[in-house]
């Protein structure tokens, strides 16, 4: 097929399309869906018994606020990256709340080590954390995937990584409301670590997850 014939074919087959909403509006929609899902999850699992006490602690509030902002900003960035020509500066936005979140949890782990010495470093597998975070991230993750595929994933690794960070970050936030952790070290490794690994794996497989463009030539041949 020569180029002029391709243009005629595309013009003959074109239909009106509804432009995507701005990324921040799509992020707001996604956040609404994610929060609704997490609210159902928390109610189903029953909030942790010490939640009211923890909510009065500044460190806990800062930690959860930073996790929330990480998730929300990552969602906005992910949805921005499927609009070709996006500004690369937006990629930096979630890094600040992420640093605060890791910093607060890391500081807590360091304080525990200072208070208890090397005994606090006893390795403890907490696979339940991974399972619950994945449960919390599942529906937001699927919703994010659907919304990302409606765009043009010209940087699929970035879109997938930030999308997964958003889903896992919010999922982790929900989990923290019903699943208490025994120490900040456990939190650092099994919560923060799980969220970052999920984001990294999604980024590594982004091109497969968000295959773009679809096989256009095969569609034209039909």
């Amino acid at each position: 097929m020569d180029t002029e014939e391709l243009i005629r074919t595309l013009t003959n087959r074109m239909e009106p399309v509804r432009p995507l909403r701005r990324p921040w509006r799509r992020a707001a929609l996604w956040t609404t869906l994610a929060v609704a899902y997490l609210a159902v999850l928390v109610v189903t699992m029953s909030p942790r018994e010490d939640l009211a006490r923890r909510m009065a602690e500044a460190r806990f509030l800062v930690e959860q606020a930073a996790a929330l902002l990480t998730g929300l900003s990552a969602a906005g960035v992910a949805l921005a990256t499927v609009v070709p020509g996006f500004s690369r500066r937006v990629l930096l936005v979630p890094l600040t709340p992420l640093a605060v979140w890791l910093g607060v949890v890391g500081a807590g782990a360091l304080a525990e080590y200072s208070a208890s010495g090397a005994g606090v470093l006893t390795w403890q597998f907490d696979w339940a954390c991974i399972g619950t975070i994945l449960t919390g991230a599942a529906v937001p993750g699927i919703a994010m995937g659907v919304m990302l595929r409606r765009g043009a994933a010209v940087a699929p690794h970035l879109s997938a990584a930030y999308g997964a960070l958003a889903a896992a970050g919010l999922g982790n936030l929900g989990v923290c409301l019903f699943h208490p952790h025994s120490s900040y070290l456990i939190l650092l490794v099994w919560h923060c670590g799980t969220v970052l690994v999920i984001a990294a794996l999604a980024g590594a497989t982004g091109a497969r997850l968000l295959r773009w463009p679809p096989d256009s030539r095969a569609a034209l041949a039909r």
Partner: protein
Amino acid sequence: MQAAQGGDGDAYSRLLSDLVPLLRRTVGRRRAGAAAGDVEDLVQDVLLSIHVARASYDASRPFLPWLLAIVRNRLADGARRWGRRAAHELQVEDIEVTFSELGSNTGSGGLGEGRDLQRAMATLSPRQREAVVLLKLREMSLKEAAEASGQTVGALKVAVHRAMAVLRRRLGSPGTHGH
């Protein structure tokens, strides 16, 4: 582009036609040394991608950054496909070409005719035709194509190289490639 999003076919046709010279220059600059056919393939890839991605364009923002981001993505993908093609083909010098039809060139034009391509494909041996379908049209990996066809990887490489050489000679000008 905004008019095209609304379904204005004339505007869309004008836009794409106006973009072609720009795309040829841009792709030609970034793929210096590429064959004219490969450049045209990439230009068509970009046009197809624009078609697929047109809902993502925000009319309140400049058009060129949106377009160039798509061009960069297609150039990167084209480079990966070129690398796979170079790995998939094994250059063989002693190409035997026989044609079962005499005077099979219709003279009606080059690669623009799908029927010419179909006729050219029909002159390939079954193994060569299968190699082209699996590796070029379905873009399978060598391993996947070997499993699907029962041919070895080496045999597939030879078959697809010979098939492409035959198709190029049958279809004449290297200006455009058909898919």
